[in-house]
């Protein structure tokens, strides 16, 4: 059943992405000041949203695990974190390439990019931590604790650098300063549609990863049974 769901999600994502790509490249006009390059925003921003959403969902699942002790929450949280790290990396890399064209530099200490980098670093540490612990309950417990600290931390980093970077002039992603309301509606729609497409891709990847976690647990329990 789960395999069918994954295939269905993959197909839906493929169709949606094809439609979106057509929209992005053919239908939408060039942006006033940036020309062609701005189209990268349609992957850059949704990837960030998928990443951030993933980390906060993972935190919720971690808290649920700590409250209930059901290891399924832990498996799901770990899978979501892994996928979220991938999408956050996509965000960072596309942001870097975009910055190179617009501002001539590969990186800027904009509060969004910096918070995203901190997020990726913290949750890469999370993935490394999980690999270092063999015992499932201990792994789940400690991972959950780190997720809570990590997410709270990201909020603090976001808020403090946001203040800092608003006080000091610095490059800011152009039409996001005015909030989404500053954006042309057609572009906003394309952005949201691509967000949906990436969410579906993320969901499919998460399902696959969670299935792998169950398999790993099954192998583990078979080994333990054999030892007894």
């Amino acid at each position, binding site marked *: 059943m789960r395999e069918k769901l994954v295939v269905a999600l993959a197909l839906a994502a493929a169709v949606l992405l094809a439609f979106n790509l057509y929209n992005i490249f053919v239908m939408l006009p060039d942006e006033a000041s940036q020309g*062609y*390059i701005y189209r990268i925003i349609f992957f850059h921003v949704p990837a960030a949203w998928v990443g951030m959403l993933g980390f906060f969902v993972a935190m919720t699942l971690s808290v649920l695990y700590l409250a209930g002790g059901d290891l399924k929450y832990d498996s799901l949280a770990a899978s979501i974190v892994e996928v979220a790290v991938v999408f956050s990396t996509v965000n960072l890399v*596309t942001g870097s390439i975009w910055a190179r064209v617009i501002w001539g530099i590969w990186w800027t200490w904009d509060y969004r990019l910096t918070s995203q980098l901190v997020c990726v670093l913290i949750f890469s540490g999370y993935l490394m931590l999980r690999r270092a612990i063999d015992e499932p309950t201990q792994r789940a417990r400690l991972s959950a604790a780190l997720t809570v600290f990590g997410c709270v931390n990201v909020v603090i980093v976001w808020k403090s650098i946001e203040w800092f970077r608003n006080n000091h002039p610095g490059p800011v992603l152009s039409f996001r300063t005015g909030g989404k309301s500053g954006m042309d509606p057609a572009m906003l729609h394309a952005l949201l549609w691509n967000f949906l497409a990436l969410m579906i891709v993320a969901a499919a990847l998460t399902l696959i990863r969670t299935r*792998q976690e169950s398999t790993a647990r099954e192998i583990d329990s078979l080994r333990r049974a054999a030892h007894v």
Partner: protein
Amino acid sequence: MDARNFTFMFYGFLAAWLIILAYVVSLARRSARLSKELEDVKQLVGSGQKT
């Protein structure tokens, strides 16, 4: 200027796709490895041996 923008935009999209593709490939390899390991362990347990 516009041609260079186009190249960089292409690089940008390529980077995004490559990262996701790399992850999908790693997932696929991990799935294969886990399936094989599961089969091996089931066989070992089934034959009554201790691992």
